C-alpha cells in the first residue's frame, strides 16, 4: 500500500476552527498526524506588552472566542494577585455565576460541533439554539453577545440589571427542561454509543504524562478540577460535584461534558440563592497612571476545556512586561491529538479532535 499525505483543514468540513492537521496515511489508517497550528496567531502576548493593564482586558478575551470569560478571569486574577487588589464578596459570586453561564454556553457550542460532526443535526440545532439563549443573558448582563469584557480587576464591570436573577432562572429552566430530549436523542442514543465509544481512547497514566486537564483528564477517572483543588471566586462557597467517567474515550468525554453542564446549572441556582448584597467593583487606580509593582504571578482557573492559566510579569511599569497564557487546548491539540490519531481511522480524525474540544485560537494566541 502506498503512503499518502493528507491535509485535514483549515478549509475542511470536519474541522471546527481554523486549524489544520497533516496526516500521513496508509489506506484509511493514519500512520502519523502532525498538528499544524498558527492560522490564528496574532501575537497576543506581544501586543499586550504595548498596552496598559486595563487596555488589555478588551484584548485578552479575544484569545478564546468560544468562551472569552475564562481568559478574562485568569488575567484579572493574575493582575489582582500582582497588584494586591481585593475583590468584594458579591463580585466573587457574580463572577462565579458568570463563569458558569459561560461554561454552559461553551459546552453547548462544543455539543453543537460534536453532534454536527457525528451527523446528529437535530441535536446540533438544539444546542446552538440553547446557546443563543445563554448569549441573550450575556447580552443583558454585559452589553455584548460574544465578547463580554465583564470581569475587571477589583470586581466586575456592572452589577446585575434589574430582574436578571429571574431571567437566569427562567432561561436555565427552559434549557434544563430539554435535558430528557437531549438524552433521548443523543446521549442515550445507541448510534452515538457505537460511534463514540473507543474512539480517541487514552488512559489516565498517559493523560497525566501528556499534561491533560479538563474533561480529557476527568474522562479517565480523576476528579481534577481547578475549581475544586484551588478554589477561586465563590466556588468554595457552595456544594457541588466533579463529574467523572473512567473509560477515557470520546464517549466518556462527551458524557462528562453533559454532566458538567447540569452540575453548572445546579451550581448557578445555589450561588444565586446565597448571593450577598453589596458592592461589586473595587475601583483600580486611574488607568493612565496605574503601575503595578515588580513581580510575577501565575493564576489559573478551570475553563470549559481545562486548566486556563495566566503568567504575568510586571517590571513596575504601567504595562505588563510579559504575559503568557497556559491554554488547555495547547497540550490537547498539539500532543494528545497527535498521539491519539496514530493508528486511527481517517474517518475518526474529526471525531477525536472535536471530542478533545480543541479551540484553535487558544493554541495560536
Amino acid at each position, binding site marked *: 500500500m502506498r503512503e499518502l499525505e493528507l491535509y485535514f483543514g483549515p478549509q475542511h468540513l470536519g474541522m471546527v476552527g481554523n486549524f489544520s492537521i497533516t496526516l500521513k496515511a496508509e489506506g484509511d489508517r493514519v500512520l502519523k498526524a502532525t498538528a499544524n497550528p498558527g492560522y490564528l496567531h496574532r501575537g497576543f502576548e506581544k501586543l499586550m506588552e504595548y*498596552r496598559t493593564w*486595563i*487596555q*488589555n*482586558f*478588551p*484584548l485578552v478575551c479575544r484569545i478564546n472566542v468560544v468562551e472569552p470569560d475564562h481568559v478574562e478571569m485568569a488575567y484579572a486574577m493574575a493582575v489582582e494577585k500582582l497588584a494586591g487588589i481585593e475583590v468584594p464578596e458579591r463580585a466573587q459570586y457574580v463572577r462565579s455565576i458568570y463563569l458558569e453561564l459561560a461554561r454552559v454556553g461553551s459546552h453547548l457550542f462544543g455539543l453543537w460541533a460534536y453532534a454536527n460532526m457525528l451527523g446528529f443535526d*437535530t441535536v446540533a440545532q438544539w444546542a446552538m*439554539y440553547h446557546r443563543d439563549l445563554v448569549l*441573550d443573558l450575556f*447580552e*443583558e*448582563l*454585559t*452589553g*455584548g453577545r460574544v*465578547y463580554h*469584557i465583564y470581569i475587571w480587576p477589583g470586581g466586575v*464591570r*456592572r452589577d446585575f*440589571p434589574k430582574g436578571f436573577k429571574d431571567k437566569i432562572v427562567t432561561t436555565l429552566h427552559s434549557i434544563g427542561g430539554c435535558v430528557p*430530549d437531549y*438524552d*433521548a*436523542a*443523543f*446521549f*442515550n*442514543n*445507541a*448510534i*452515538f*454509543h*457505537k460511534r463514540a465509544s473507543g474512539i480517541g481512547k487514552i488512559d489516565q497514566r498517559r493523560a497525566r504524562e501528556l499534561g491533560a486537564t479538563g474533561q480529557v483528564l476527568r474522562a479517565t477517572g480523576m476528579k481534577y478540577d481547578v475549581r475544586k483543588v484551588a478554589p477561586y471566586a465563590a466556588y468554595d462557597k457552595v456544594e457541588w460535584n466533579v463529574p467523572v467517567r473512567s473509560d477515557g474515550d470520546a464517549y466518556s468525554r462527551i*458524557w462528562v461534558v453533559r454532566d458538567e453542564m447540569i452540575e453548572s446549572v445546579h451550581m448557578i441556582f445555589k450561588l444565586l440563592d446565597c448571593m450577598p448584597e453589596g458592592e461589586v*467593583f473595587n*475601583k*483600580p*487606580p*486611574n*488607568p*493612565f*497612571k496605574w503601575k503595578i509593582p515588580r513581580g510575577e504571578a501565575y493564576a489559573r482557573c478551570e475553563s470549559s476545556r481545562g486548566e486556563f492559566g495566566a503568567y504575568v510579569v510586571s517590571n513596575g511599569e504601567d504595562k505588563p512586561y510579559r504575559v503568557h497564557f497556559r491554554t488547555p487546548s495547547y497540550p490537547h491539540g498539539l500532543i494528545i491529538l497527535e498521539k491519539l490519531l496514530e493508528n486511527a481511522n481517517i474517518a475518526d480524525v474529526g471525531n477525536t479532535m472535536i471530542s478533545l474540544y480543541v479551540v484553535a485560537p487558544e493554541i495560536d494566541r
Partner: protein
Amino acid sequence: MAMPSILGPFKTLRFLFEKPKTLRYPFERKEPALRYRGFHLNDWEKCTGCGNCADICPNQAIEMVEIPDMEAQPGQKNERPRLDYGRCCFCGLCVDICPPGSLRLSRDYFHIHFDTKTFTFIPKDEKTEKEKFLPPDKYSILQASLAHRKQDYEGFASDLDFSLFEPERITMPELGAEERKMSFVEQVLGYDKESARKEAARCLECKLCEEACPAHLKISDYVRAIYEDKPADSLKTIFKDNPIPAICGRICMKHCETACSLSIRGEPIAIRWLKRYVADSILDYKTALELSPAQPSGKKVAIIGAGPSGLALAYFLTLQGHHAVVFDAFPGGGGMVRIGPPAYRLPLESIDKDVNHMASLGVEFNFNTRVGSDISFEDIMKKYDAVYLAIGTSQSRSTKVKNADKCMLALDFLRKSKLESGVVVGKKIVVIGGGNVAMDVARTGLRLQKMQYPDEPTEIKTVCLENGDEMPASEDEIRESKEEGIAFNPAWGPKEVRLDDGGNIAGLLCMKVKSVFDGQGRFSPSFYEDQELFLEADTIIEAIGQAPDFSFIPQNLMSTLEFTPRRKVKVDENGQTTITRVFAGGDIVNINLDAVTAIADAKVAAEGIGKIFSKKTSG
C-alpha cells in the same frame, strides 16, 4: 445513565408538531439588550474634547479632530472624537473613562457598505444631528447605517460607580468651624504625602486645566510628578511658570479646577492644594530647583510693587540675567496678598518663603519704600532700564453714604489686623460688601471679636447689594463664613450710618435693592426707598472694592498713560504701557484681579522686556 437505545431518539419526533423556534427576521425582531454596546453617540454640548477616550482606546480607533467652526474656551477644546469602525472593538472603555459622560454607545449596530471610507465618522447624537436619527416610523432596518439610525436608542452608558476615574477627591483635612473661628491658625491643614499622591493619581492628564490657567502652568506634568513621588521635579515644572507656589497654592482663584474635566460630574482635582503640598513639602527651593545662574546682562529693572506680579517678573528677569530691584511700601513682600488674605488662609511665613527664595537668587528688595514719597518716580525712570508697574489696587473704595467717614475701610482693617496689632473691634460689626474681600473682613472681624471678647456674646453681619446666589464671593467662602456664624443680609444697600449722641456709630440703615445693574448691564443700583432695615452696630467696615493709586506718577507722564474702556492700564502685546520703557501688569491691567493672572502678565512683560533689551544691544 440508561442503556443506549436506538428507539429512544424517536421520542423527539413530537417536535415536528411544535411551533418553530426560528425568528422570522427581519419581520420578527429581537431588540438588543438595554446595555448593548453598539455604535457611539456623543453629546456635543456636554463633550469637552478632553481626549481621554482617544487615550484609553486600545486600538487607536479614536482620534481627536479639530472642528472648524467651533471655538475653544476654558474647559472646552474645539476637538471632538472621530471613530474608525475599522478599528473599534466596542469594548466601551471610552464610555467608562468619559468624564462628562457625553460619550455613550447606542443599540444600533448596522453599517454595511462596500466603501471602507464610510466606516470612519464623527459621532453626534439626536440633539446635533437630527437628520440622521429617525423616529421609529421612518426608520427602516434595510437602510440602517451610520447615516440612518434610530432615535432614542441608548445603550451602554456611563455609570459613575463603575467609571474608570475616581469622581470624588481626597478629603482635605480642615479645622472645624468652631475651632478655627477662635484664632488665626491656618484653616486648611494640607495634604500629607499619601493623600497628595492619591489625589494626584486621579488626574487624567487631559490638560483642559492648562489651557484654562491664565499662566498656562504645566499642571498635568507637575501633578504626575507628585503621583510619582518626585516633588522636586514637580517644583521645577511649577517654577517654569509660577515662582510663588506657596502663595498660589493657598489663594489661587483656581481657574484650572473650574475647567477640570472631572468637575463636571464629580469633584475637580485639588490642583491648588497639590501645588501647596509641593511648596510646603520642599523646605529649600533653591537646592531642589538646581537653577544655573544666568550670565549677568548688566540691565536693571525697577519693579514697583512686590505683589505676585512684581515677584514673578523679578524671578523671570533674574533668570534672564537682568538685575531686578523691587520697591514696596509694606515691610515685607507679597503686596496685596500680604495684607489681603487673612492669616488663616495665607500665613505670613508662606509669603516669606517665596520672597526669601527670590532674594536669595539676587533680587533686590526695598521694603518700606513708597514710590512718590521715599523715592521719586523720575529718579527710577532715570536710573533703570525699564520699569514695571505692579502696584495693584491698594485703595479701598468707600460707599460715601452719610457719616461714612466713621467707618473703617477694608484694606486698612485687614492690613492693621494682619501686620500690626491692636485693632480694636466692637461687639457688633457690620461689613458692607459681598465679595471675597468682604468675606475676609467679616471672618477676620469675627476672630478678633472672639479673641477680644472671649466670654461675651458678639455678632457680625454682612450687607450686600446682590441676591444670595449672585454674590460675587466664592461659594466656599460663603459656606465657610456661614459655618462660622456670620449672618448675611443680601439685597440690601447702605443708606446712612446712624450715630448715637456721642458721635459714635450706632448702626447702619439699609434700603431694599430693586436691581443692581441697569438695562445695559452696567453697575447702577436702584432701591426701594421705603423698605428699610436697621442693623445695630458699633463697628462698620466697608469692603465694596478697591482702586489703584497712581498719585506717584508725575502729571506729565500720567497724561500720556492710556487706559482701556474698563479703566485698566492699556498695554501692548509685550506688556508695555503707552509710556516707553514702562511696563505694567497685575490688577491694574487685567480684569480677573487675581494672583495667577498677575503672574501671567509678568510672563508677558518678562518676554517684552527681554525683547527690548536684546533689540537695544543688537541695534
